[in-house]
């Protein structure tokens, strides 16, 4: 545990020494705000809630989170630092978890910096803050899911661009699995029960439910199992590629 903590801290502080982190946060905040006001017509709707703010998060994460996740392993592999990293007295699993936690906390910081929206909505009206809290939690969990998948893909390749594109594609499949375009693909050749279980694996459906203000244990199981399994696979990939 201590080792995980040390890795996470080192990684997190590394984020803030490169300009990339700041660029990411600035882009995320500006886009989240812009989409809410210009596409979501938040002011014109006249409703004191943050529904149109959260509704764009899955789509923002679709390309912003793979951008954070792509460098987690691909960069280490390219610069060769992975050899050094793996000789440290920590297990691969600990490094995987530590790296993921750092990135997840970083995503959390970016998300928390949208707090002016929360202040504004409370100044203009009387929103249901319980629903807003649930939506923030849901959004952060979803970011964690996207991130774990992106980290996993990043471990497969040296090339960050390939990692980014693959991770985006994988996240897209997970995000949209409840939607008909993905469902119809499975419906053609798999039994109905399989199609149903695929639809349950959708980031979008699970996030939509949480963002209505109710945190269901199944949504938690879903998000944490995505994160857990992706990190497990990530460890297996790093192990498998050791010395290759």
């Amino acid at each position, binding site marked *: 545990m201590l080792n995980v903590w040390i890795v996470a801290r080192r990684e997190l502080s590394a984020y803030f020494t490169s300009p990339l982190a700041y660029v990411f946060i600035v882009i995320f905040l500006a886009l989240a705000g812009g989409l809410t006001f210009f596409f979501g017509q938040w002011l014109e709707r006249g409703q004191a809630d943050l529904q149109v703010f959260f509704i764009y998060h899955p789509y923002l994460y679709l390309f912003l989170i793979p951008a954070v996740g792509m460098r987690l392993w691909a960069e280490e592999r390219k610069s060769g630092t992975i050899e050094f990293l793996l000789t440290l007295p920590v297990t691969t699993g600990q490094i995987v978890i530590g790296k993921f936690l750092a990135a997840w906390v970083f995503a959390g910081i970016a998300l928390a910096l949208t707090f002016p929206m929360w202040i504004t909505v409370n100044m203009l009206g009387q929103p249901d803050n319980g629903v807003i809290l649930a939506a923030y939690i849901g959004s952060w969990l979803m970011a964690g899911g996207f991130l774990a998948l992106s980290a996993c893909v990043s471990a497969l390749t040296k090339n960050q661009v390939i990692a980014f594109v693959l991770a985006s594609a994988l996240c897209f499949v997970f995000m949209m699995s409840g939607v008909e375009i993905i469902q119809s693909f499975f419906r053609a050749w798999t039994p109905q029960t399989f199609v149903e279980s695929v639809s349950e694996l959708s980031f979008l459906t699970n996030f939509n439910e949480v963002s209505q203000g109710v945190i269901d*244990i199944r949504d938690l199981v879903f998000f944490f199992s995505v994160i857990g399994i992706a990190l497990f696979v990530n460890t297996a990939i790093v192990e498998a590629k050791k010395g290759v």
Partner: protein
Amino acid sequence: MWDRIRNADRQVLAWATIGLAIVFFLTLNALSNTVLTSTRLDLTEDRLFTLSSGTRDVLSTLEEPIDLRFYYSQRFDEIGPNIARHADRVRELLDEYERLSNGMIRIEEFDPQPFSTEEDLAVSDGLQGLPFDQSGARAYFGVSGANSTDDQDAIGYLAPERSPFLEYDLTRLISNLAEPEKPVVALLTDLPFQGTQFDNFTPWLILDGLRQFFDVKFLDKDATALPEDTEVLVIAGAHTIKDELLYAMDQFTVNGGQVLAFADPFAETMAMLGPTAGQLPPPGVGQAAIEPLLNAWGVTVARGEFVANLDDAVRVGFPNPETGQQVAVDYVAWLTLQGDRFSKTDAVSAQLQRIVVSTAGAFMSAEGAETRLEPLIYTTPTSDLMSAFEVSQQPNPIALLDRFEPQDTVYNLAARVIGKVKSAYPDGPPENVLEALEDDAAAEALRAAHKSEADTDANIILVGDVDMLANQNWAQVQDVAGEQVAIPTANNADFFINAIDNLRGSQGLVGLRGRGFSIRPFEVIEEMRSEADNKFRNKEQELLARIAEMGETIERLQREEQTTGAILTSQQQSEIDNFRLEMLDSRQELRNVQRSLREDVESLERRVRVFNIWAAPLVIAVLAILLAIVRRIRRSRYHRTVLH
């Protein structure tokens, strides 16, 4: 060689582990979706996703088994995950009902395929099939139920749009089956409750709602008595009442009968009857018709006067007759009441969030009355009593607002009568009622049965506006896949049905109504808009008066010139020119005033936009640059110290 094999082994092992992990992931989620149900943390303010105590009460007091059939066509899944999720929610809620009912509720689920026996069953149970594709096949999503005596009821289509009211709809279904004998409500009204020729006699939605719980018996114009089994009497906008009926209603009340009476200074909904109904009844008749009863109950009304209020006025668009310009104006006759305008101590009003009324009257305690009024819905002190004649013919919201003078008085728009009421006929049945009877024996019997004072406390609720029951004041009808679904926009129907339920002492569903409904506007912006509009109107009035005055002067001078033939002096001519210029200036100023007031709201919106889109990114960017500079300075210092 050995290394390569070992490496290959490791890779195969890794891929196998990954494969297993994915299988584990799928299994875990499939399991969690079937095994884990209803464990949820409800963070919504009104606990929308938690079963209410009202439902729990209804379920725990069931005495007979109820069989529910849940129909869901799996084909709905193809439409999208939302409807499938809603179906899951219904399924879970039904399971929860089953669990809490101590075995009294039994549930069966069906997936009606086109042209199957299940489909026939669904149709005969009263489900509405939605056309699914071109082939004419229909899909079903609803619940039907039956009790042990074969009474049936159903929710024909569980529209996802009504999801916040799902618990209410299901509990109502069960409650109806648990109590199949519907209590009789006698309804006396002159309003078009059952529709008009203009809407193909489509009944008001509120009547559908009422019929779900009660056996509604309309009293016709010639009725002289109440139906024998009447539990609750509703007087909703009756303009003339026969003396016999009025006496019957009086005795019904004195004998402890339950009454919900509307005394509306002006029933706008009468206009819906169109020209065939003749002229609109003059203001005050709806109040006058039941005034003898009201007085006997110790209540007075300001006949023909409605409560105008500025704080809760509905904003309407109105073309200013003087300028022809469309302006937004607070129409003080129509009110949207929210939040603290409802008594939180009375079960009838405690759950209300929003009530819409139009030209509502007020109730006051009569001097020396032995009863008292317990307010249920009331206004803020920024209120005034105004004559309903002001709005009965071509209402002018601007003129109305000009004449509005706040009286610093809170008015009761709905109230409960507390105490023992008296009869409006202290000397026994009125002569004309006795004379109308067939024989002396009947007259004697009526005289003997007469009661001039109640023994028990009254069960009376009074409401000052009857238009609140009309669709346009509380519901929107949406077309959802060809079905008409009512989506409430205010709690008017909840209040109406709650009041009747509460009068007859049934509390089960009272607490459930009003849940699942919340409108949270940007109060600050709305207030600013309202303030800006008022300011503009004042300024506008001032300038318009000035423009009119100048116009008159110019006209007078020109007329003098024409009639007397006297040529205007150059001084007069220049005066006219000056006036013209000033008039143009005034008009310009008017436009400027309007623009500048709108600017307040617009500038707030601009600030909000900039603050939310750019403030945080800018701070981060500046911080990043500062940090970079600090780091560079530190690094160069370090280099210097190392080098020297």
